[in-house]
Structure formats: C-alpha cells, structure tokens
C-alpha cells in the first residue's frame, strides 16, 4: 500500500485512503423517504498476523521476520450490500462468526469500513452493549448524563427526560447511589431506559437482551412494540428464529462475512434452518 508508513505496516487493518473520516450525526431526516440505511459493497479487512504488535520489541522482531510473515488477510465482512427502508424491520441471522455483530458495529460507526460505504439517514440507537461507558464510581444520576451524552443526547433533552428515565428504570430510590452498588439487572435497566428514551430512526439490536425481571422485560417489550407501531426501523441480530419470524419482514443470512441470502423472512429462515441441520457445528465456524 502506498500510504503505509512504519505504523502502516504494523497495522492489521489495511488502511485505505479516505476511510478514517468517520462522522456521526444524530439529526433526524424524517421527511426524507429515501432508505434509512444504505450499504454498498461494504468490506472489512483485517491482517491477522500482525494482530498483537503492541510493543516496540515485538514490532522489531516482526519487521525482521517480515519476509516470512506476509499479510494474512481476513475479511469479517465481504461485499455486503443492502438497503433498509424507513419502518422496515430487518433480521440478521447466521452462524457464529458470520459477521453479524461486526455489521452492526460498522453501521453504528464504531468500526470504519475498509471498502464500501454506509449511509445512515437519521439517529441511531445502538443497543449493542447497554451501559457502555457507565462509571461505577458515579451515581445513577451522574451516569444518566454521562451515558446520555455519550449517546449524543443534548443536556437539555436529558434534563427534560430525567424523571421519565428514572421512573422507567424503576430506580427512584437508588438514583443517588454509586453504580457499583447496583445489581447487574439495575444497571441494565438504567442503560435500556436511557438508550431508548428518545425514539430513534434506526434501532440496532444485538440478540434480545434479557433485562431485569419478568415485569421489566414486559416493559421493554412494550417499548419495542411502541417503536414498531411508530415505524422505527429496526435491525435485529438473533439466533432465535421464532423471534426473527415474529419481528422481521425481511431477513439477511450471513456466512463467512458474505450475504448468502436476503429476502422474505420465511424463505431465508427456512434456508438457514436447512443449512444448520445439514452442517455439524464444528464445520460451521471458521478456524
């Protein structure tokens, strides 16, 4: 690669020009009837052999040996293209390591594409890992503002919705207690309440998280249902085929980072189930 300097050679992600500009915006463009999400020729490339060069000594050794260690390319996603229209609910299925979660992370702006493009029109709510960025030493109240601003909510919006967030999370009594004294369920409830307080244009869901007890799960489902009714676009990654059938009208089947099938949920899921039945688990995952 022409642009790779010393650090570039150490990189395990082959870097292509123009990729490093990741912009992210939460402004909504509801008026537009163009697809909420457009993905064209998206590929992610990693260079595996240079994986863990995190000290200069290791790096020097690799440079010396480099004639032997040539780049071993690995494509977590390869030439993925699809569009999602406003209000549509798309399922993403496939065996472990197929690239499902990577795809969500690219859409969320966490991983920049190596090749291809992703256009998102509107605000994303990435429910990929709830409460990423919670600080255990801060109180629940302080964390609402920290996590909220991490998700891009303006301060005023958070202040306005603060009571609603706390009520929804059922944490009125504990909101001024440091988060390290919360149970796992309490943190997750708070994370869910913050992340979903403003209705997004595009909701990214990785698996169906089981948040809290049965009562709270019911509330989560209701909130999801209200999003569905209001026409929020949803991308759902799951291994639960029943859930996919219930939720999604259209489904993508990924394998080895490529789209195997995309189309009406019933057909794609049926195809995936035949595929799963025919190949034993050991052969499904990559080395």
């Amino acid at each position: 690669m022409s642009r790779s300097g010393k650090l570039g050679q150490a990189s395990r992600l082959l870097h292509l020009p123009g990729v490093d500009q990741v912009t992210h915006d939460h402004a909504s463009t509801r008026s537009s009837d163009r697809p909420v999400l457009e993905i064209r020729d998206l590929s992610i490339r990693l260079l595996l052999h240079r994986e863990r060069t995190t000290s200069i000594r290791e790096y020097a050794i690799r440079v010396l040996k480099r004639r032997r260690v040539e780049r071993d390319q690995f494509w977590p996603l390869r030439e993925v293209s699809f569009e999602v229209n406003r209000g549509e609910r798309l399922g993403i299925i496939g065996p472990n390591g197929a690239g499902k979660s990577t795809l969500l992370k690219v859409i969320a702006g966490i991983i920049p594409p190596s090749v291809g493009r992703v256009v998102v029109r509107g605000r994303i709510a990435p429910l990929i890992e709830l409460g990423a960025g919670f600080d255990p030493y801060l109180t629940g109240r302080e964390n609402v503002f920290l996590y909220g601003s991490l998700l891009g909510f303006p301060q005023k919006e958070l202040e306005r919705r603060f009571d609603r967030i706390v009520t929804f999370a059922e944490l009125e009594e504990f909101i001024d207690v440091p988060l390290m004294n919360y149970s796992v369920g309490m943190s997750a409830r708070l994370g869910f309440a913050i992340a979903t307080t403003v209705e997004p244009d595009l909701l990214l869901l990785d698996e169906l998280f089981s948040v809290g007890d049965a009562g709270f799960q019911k509330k989560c489902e209701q909130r999801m249902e209200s999003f569905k009714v209001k026409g929020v676009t949803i991308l759902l990654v799951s291994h639960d085929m029943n859930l996919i059938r219930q939720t999604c009208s259209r489904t993508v089947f990924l394998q080895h980072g490529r789209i195997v099938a995309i189309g009406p949920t019933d057909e794609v899921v049926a195809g995936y189930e035949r595929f799963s039945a025919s190949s034993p688990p050991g052969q499904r995952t990559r080395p």
Partner: protein
Amino acid sequence: MTKAFSSGPSVRPESVTPEPGIYFAEHCSSGPLLTLFRYRELLRQLVIREVKLRYKRSVLGFAWTVLNPLFAMAIFTMVFSRIFGDRPNYPLYVITALLGWNLFSLGTSRGLDSVVINGPIIRKVFVPKAIFPVASVASQVVNFVFSLVPLFLFMVAIGVGFGRSLLWLPIPLLSLACFALGIALLLGTFNVFFRDVKYFYEAGVLAWFYATPIFYPPEIIPDTFKFLLYVNPMYALLESLRTPLYQGTAPRLDLLFLGLGISLFTLLLGWAVFHRFEGRFIHYV
C-alpha cells in the same frame, strides 16, 4: 486489493462510483472537528468526572489539588533555599512554574493513555476519539484555575500584591494547554500501537522536569548549554506563565510568542497525526 480509493469522502450518496467511507445523514456529514464540537456535552461530562473522581473517598478531597503543589513547593524550598535563597520569595518562584508544569505533565501523561483506557467505550459506542485526550488536558486546566485561588491567597499572605499583569495570564495558559494537548494527541496515537510509549514518556518527563528551569533560575545554566532553553518549549511557556505572577510584570514578548507558536504548531501536528490513524484504533484498544 491495491487499487487506491483515493478520493476523499463525498457527501453525495448518488455519485456513481462507490467510495469507501462511512456516511451518516448526508446533509450533516461533518468533519472531525465539527463532530468533536457536537460532543461538547460529553466533554463537559468527562471533565466533571475526572475532576470529581480523582479524590473520591479521600477525606480532604478536592483540597489535594491545591495541597499537592504546596507540599512540593515546601520540599523544594527546604532543599534549595540555601542555594537559591537569594532570590526574593523563592517559594512563590517555585510554585508559579510548578503549577504550570503539573498542568503539562499530568495532562500529557493522562491524555496519552486516555484512548487506551477508554478502549471499552470506543469498542462499544461511536465517539470522537480525540475527546478523551482533550478531556484529560481540559481537566488539568480546570485544576490549574482552581489552584489559582489559594495561590492568590498565598501571594497576599506573603505580601506580594498582584495587579494588572495578571491579564497576561490567559495567553501562556492557553499556549500551555495547546502544547499539552498536541503532545497528548501525538504520543497518544503512538501509544495505541505501542504501549511502550507511555513508559518511555514517564521516564522522559522526569528528565524534562529537571532540564527546565522550574525550581532553579535559568541563569545558573552554563553558557554552553544555554541553547537548551530555546529548544525546550516548556522554558518559554513556564517563564511566560511565571512572570506575571511572580514579578508582576508583563512576560517577555519574544518568549510569549515563541511559546504560542510552538504550541499551536504542536497542536496541529498532534491533531493531524491522531486524525490520520484514529480509524485503526478500534483494532488495537
């Protein structure tokens, strides 16, 4: 895959050839600086967190921000007052530069590590990564401003007044912050790929401390090494910061502008390098 996708990101999704890059709503696709600005609320939260949490569970709490340099000042005075005692108000001479040095050394050493430390966040949420070094340096600026209050009390107590020369203070302070941020961005970028950088820097910053006239006057440096003062930006920066406080006069303009120039250059360089490599951070943190 050697074909270079050389053209930069376009904001028009209709263009015929697909270009690499990630695009959000086309009309608000923004540059990294603007993205950083949009996340100013997060910056505020991060600074609050850093200032708040630093002394959590300590009895004296925030007072440590002030006590720390006071203790250092006391030690330097005890050790060196014999040698440099002829200087009037030697303790004030030390602490005025020491506060600036602390801003720099804490801001850079935390800033350069901040991307790695916040790796768990970077892996899970989109966030402009430069926000972490910026927050580290900004929190040190906040600490500096807070410690000015007891410094002024100290100045009154020892009978040194302060006057209009204080109006100069924002310029060296801003320069110092820019310089610290530039170094933090630059070294922070390398630190993501080679964690050794942090340890090298920790050793280097100690040498740098002794090479800079902080507790000793610049005059004691032998003529053969005087040139060191002018290759060391911290000399110009700390002298410009110290003069309005310690001498109550305007800083030397040559040093003031030298410091400002070097700081802005370092900041631009740091920003450019950081921005060039930040797309790859996700695979290393």
